[in-house]
């Protein structure tokens, strides 16, 4: 199969769409990094409840128990990662070190998020009811 033939199978609209989507997704990387800056705190949630809230600049290893088993989480050099998890696909482990955003293990219901820091500025100061 020659490349020319494959390109001939696409319509003009296909090519415009592909071009547009590549540009848009590339921009969304820097956009997202800009909107959600680095955090200062690591929050570990299991099944919706907060299990740990730790500063990100203190190195340590914690273990939390989810429905499937124990997930080990390591904090080191202002970054956090999942060392080991009992789930099937181990997406959380393969995600590696993060310094913003979250590591989510849906099967074991564990969410590790980096929160706080500059992002607090845009948040609410208080809520009254």
């Amino acid at each position, binding site marked *: 199969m020659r490349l020319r033939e494959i390109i001939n*199978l696409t*319509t003009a*609209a*296909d090519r415009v769409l592909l071009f547009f989507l590549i540009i848009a*997704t590339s921009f969304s990387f820097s956009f*997202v990094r800009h*909107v959600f800056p680095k955090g200062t705190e690591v929050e570990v949630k299991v099944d919706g409840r907060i299990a740990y809230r730790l500063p990100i600049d203190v190195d340590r290893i914690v273990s939390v128990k989810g429905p499937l088993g124990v997930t080990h989480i390591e904090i080191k050099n202002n970054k956090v990662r999942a060392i080991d998890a009992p789930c099937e696909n181990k997406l959380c482990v393969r995600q590696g070190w993060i310094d913003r955003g979250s590591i989510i293990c849906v099967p074991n219901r564990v969410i590790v998020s980096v929160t706080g820091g500059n992002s607090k500025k845009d948040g609410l100061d208080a809520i009254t009811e």
Partner: protein
Amino acid sequence: MPSPNSPLTGPLPLSKEKLRNIIALLSAYALCLYGLETLIPSPIPWLRLGLANIITLITISLYGFRAAMMVTLIRIFVGSIFRGTFLGPAFILSLGGGVFSTIVMGITWRFLGCFGPVGISLIGSYAHNLAQLFLAYILFIRRIEAVALIAPIILLLGTVTGTFNGMVCGILLRDLKSLGSSISFQGKAP
């Protein structure tokens, strides 16, 4: 309607019984690809090839939207039972993504004739990923920044796999079409 130079053709005239057999066959193909895909170790998390989407797109263009939805639903239900994820979180994400992307691809194929297989596959891939991200946010994560930070990676990977699947689909459809015109099918259309 698809434009004349588009490799996508309209639904073929078929009896109800024959269509049922074809849906079963296509579902089997989709399940095979789905099973094969889970065996391939992916170097990057969230990289799903979405090979079953090729079958969905081919079904839409050859047998129409309803047949494609049927194939997608059979693939997701039976596939999840094989994998042991039936009614689990992965199943909900898979169902939401699959159904939504099939609907969007069906609409695109029916009403936006300017797109070929690659365009429709790309649109389907985005629909699939966005539906999954939305469902994951609503049901499991509830943290907008977590979803937003992984969204660009997932969407970019989806662009690559969507383009690839669309090309495979385009080649398949072209060859099926030339096969259909060179070999006369036995029996008349009802």
